[in-house]
């Protein structure tokens, strides 16, 4: 066991898998000698050589296209897209190719690939360093979408993703890299070291895809969240005094429908929280699902607390960010319904 922040845990996952499996290769912009702009691949080139971890041209479509070919060859590429905002040039390779190759070839070929990419706001990155595009990928059949909220989960989920034989979009909440940020931007941020989930085994372990985690059991309202918003939801629960059950989805595809349903059946109320813009975000899918499966249990409409339907505005980071106050207000409102 070691105490790790989320970057270190992600790095440790790659070290673990590169050690165990010579087919695991890591590449992307600035990930080689430099170790990545967020340091996630720090030391990998030194440790495993420049043929296992190397820099690429600035061409996200090329990175993913090459990874697909390599995956089909038999490697397990783990590629980094420097910011999730820059994943769109790879959109065609991801949706038309990576997601489809197993199905269209009837299993002849497959793409065991992980696309790691930092997402979300909270770092004053403005509209091109803050986006949360997970919703788009959940609509693409053939892609898995995974988002950790703690160092422990980050390592375990990344290992499961690397071992998965299908393409996984692994979105890393960059605001959580160094500490469990709960949205209270005016309060000094705690480092991960104070958090129990910063205790991370140095060796191999898995957190399976498709299993949500109940991070705070409660009776009154179910909060569905992932990534940074898990911590925001916990802060909101504390702030509101509502006995919320906070569920960290951990993977959106596959989705742990059962845990969600069991909880909402119990609480009869549900709030979905994400940082992405509202319209057609993954919150829409969750709300649609919950109202369908728990219709007769629901005592209030499923509420969405999300980013506004605007690009992430640089100066208004905290006015955009769906912080604990907004989530708490939604909780209280749900209780009144």
């Amino acid at each position, binding site marked *: 066991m070691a105490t790790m922040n989320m970057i270190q845990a992600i790095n440790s996952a790659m070290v673990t898998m590169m050690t165990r499996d010579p087919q695991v*290769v890591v590449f992307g912009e600035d990930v080689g000698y430099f170790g990545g702009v967020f340091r996630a691949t720090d030391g990998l080139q030194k440790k495993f050589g420049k*043929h296992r971890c190397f820099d*690429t*041209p600035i*061409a996200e*479509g*090329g990175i993913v*296209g*090459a*990874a*697909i*070919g*390599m*995956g*089909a*060859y*038999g*490697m397990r*590429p783990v590629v980094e897209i420097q910011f999730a905002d820059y994943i769109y*040039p790879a959109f*065609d*390779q991801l949706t*038309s*190719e990576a997601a*489809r*190759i*197993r*199905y*269209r*070839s*009837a*299993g*002849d*070929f*497959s793409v065991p690939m992980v696309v790691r990419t930092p997402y979300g706001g909270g770092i004053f990155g403005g509209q091109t360093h803050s986006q949360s595009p997970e919703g788009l990928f959940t609509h693409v*059949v*053939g892609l*898995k979408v995974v988002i950790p909220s703690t160092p422990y989960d980050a390592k375990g989920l990344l290992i499961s993703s690397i071992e998965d*034989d*299908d393409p996984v979009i692994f979105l890393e909440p960059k605001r959580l890299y160094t500490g469990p940020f709960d949205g209270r931007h005016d309060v000094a941020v705690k480092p991960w070291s104070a958090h129990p989930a910063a205790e991370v085994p140095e060796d191999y372990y898995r957190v399976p895809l498709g299993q949500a985690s109940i991070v705070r059991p409660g009776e009154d309202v179910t909060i569905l969240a992932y990534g940074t918003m898990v911590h925001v939801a916990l802060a909101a629960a504390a702030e509101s005094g509502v006995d919320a059950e906070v569920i960290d989805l951990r993977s959106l595809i*596959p989705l742990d*429908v059962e845990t969600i349903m069991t909880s909402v059946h119990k609480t009869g109320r549900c709030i979905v929280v994400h940082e992405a813009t509202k319209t057609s975000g993954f919150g829409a899918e969750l709300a649609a699902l919950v109202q369908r499966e728990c219709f007769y249990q629901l005592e209030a409409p499923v509420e969405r607390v999300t980013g506004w339907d605007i690009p992430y505005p640089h100066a208004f980071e905290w006015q955009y960010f769906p912080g604990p106050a907004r989530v708490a207000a939604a909780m209280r409102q749900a209780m009144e319904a």
Partner: protein
Amino acid sequence: MLHSPRLDRQAVALRPARNAPLTLRIPEPVARPGEPVNFSKLRLSAPGAVRRPALDAEPRSIHDLAYELIRVLDDEGRAVGPWVPEISSATLLSGLRTMMLTRVFDERMYRAQRQGKCSFYVRSTGEEAVSAAQAAALDAADMLFGSYRSQGLLIARGYPIVKMMGQVYSNLLDPLLGRQMPVMYSSREHNYFTVSGNLGTQFIQAVGWAMGSALSGDTRIAASWIGDGTTAEGDFHYALTFASVYRAPVILNVVNNQWAISSFQGIAGGDEAPFAARAVGYGLPALRVDGNDFLAVYAATKWAAQRARSNHGATMIELFTYRAEAHSTSDDPSRYRPADEGSKWPLGDPIARLKQHLIVRGEWSEEKHAALQEEVTQEVRNIQREAEAQGVHGNNQTPSPRTMFEGVFKEPDPRLLKQRQEAGF
């Protein structure tokens, strides 16, 4: 056009009077339907005229080859010049057979589509030498990333034609379980990568595969094929960039058949510089080859393959050919190009040219050719009968619709189990 209030809204005035108005050039082909065909602008190197550089030549030192045309067969069918390959008569005859089989297969499937037996088909008529000669020049273990017009590669590798027909018919024999449109074949066993309906994507994938092979210390190389029109996609650029940077063991083929559906190759920029020339700017060697000359295609491919196998990296080959038929069964070329353009193509028919060469070589005769023609026609006809016994498109002889809910992921998807139940399968 300058008076619109809308224009002024976004534009700032200040137009220097000193210049003449700008104009935009919209490229046009030499001839449209009803106009006389004219190939006089084509610059064709003479057979045997282009030099054959060393395998380890510096790419820039051979940049002129991107502007020439490697040709081996002369008008009499003799093989001339430095690019004459070492090639056995058996290989030539087998290549001839592949081309003839491909053409017959194409014709049968085309007619099957017209008879409503399949939803769609794409012929490679006139371009058969590309697949046949390149497959012959590569090893069976090399990985091929073809396009929808690369059926000849599979045929050359001995992939069962009955399976191809099964795929085209989406019938009980379809190895792809009815999931793909006709001609989007896939065969791991034959090292033939699953064909995509999305143009160009396979080009960079082939580079990635080759990178994987090289990273693994393997000896297998990759090859990929795209059309002249498709060179405009981003994947083309990614492929050239990655292949250059990592010196990946891959052959990047551009099949310039002069047309991309209704757009002539000038719409992709082919009039401004040959497609092969693109590669030079990335520091890659490029060969431009008469795509209807089996020997030239074979020789160029061997050169590129040897270069790749010797760790000198990637080569681009532009295969200069002509799409003799419609783009696909959904297309009618008489709407956009002169009907007789194909028959006037100065580089002829690849089958006729190889036949002539074999005759000149003393290995072949009109009679033998007619007999082979009869044989392959009969063979395809028999296979077709066998294939159609297992269903044609639309007659409900398909794999079970249950299967359509399987294989999105390796593990069963719980959503799809539910949806399958809902669908009643």
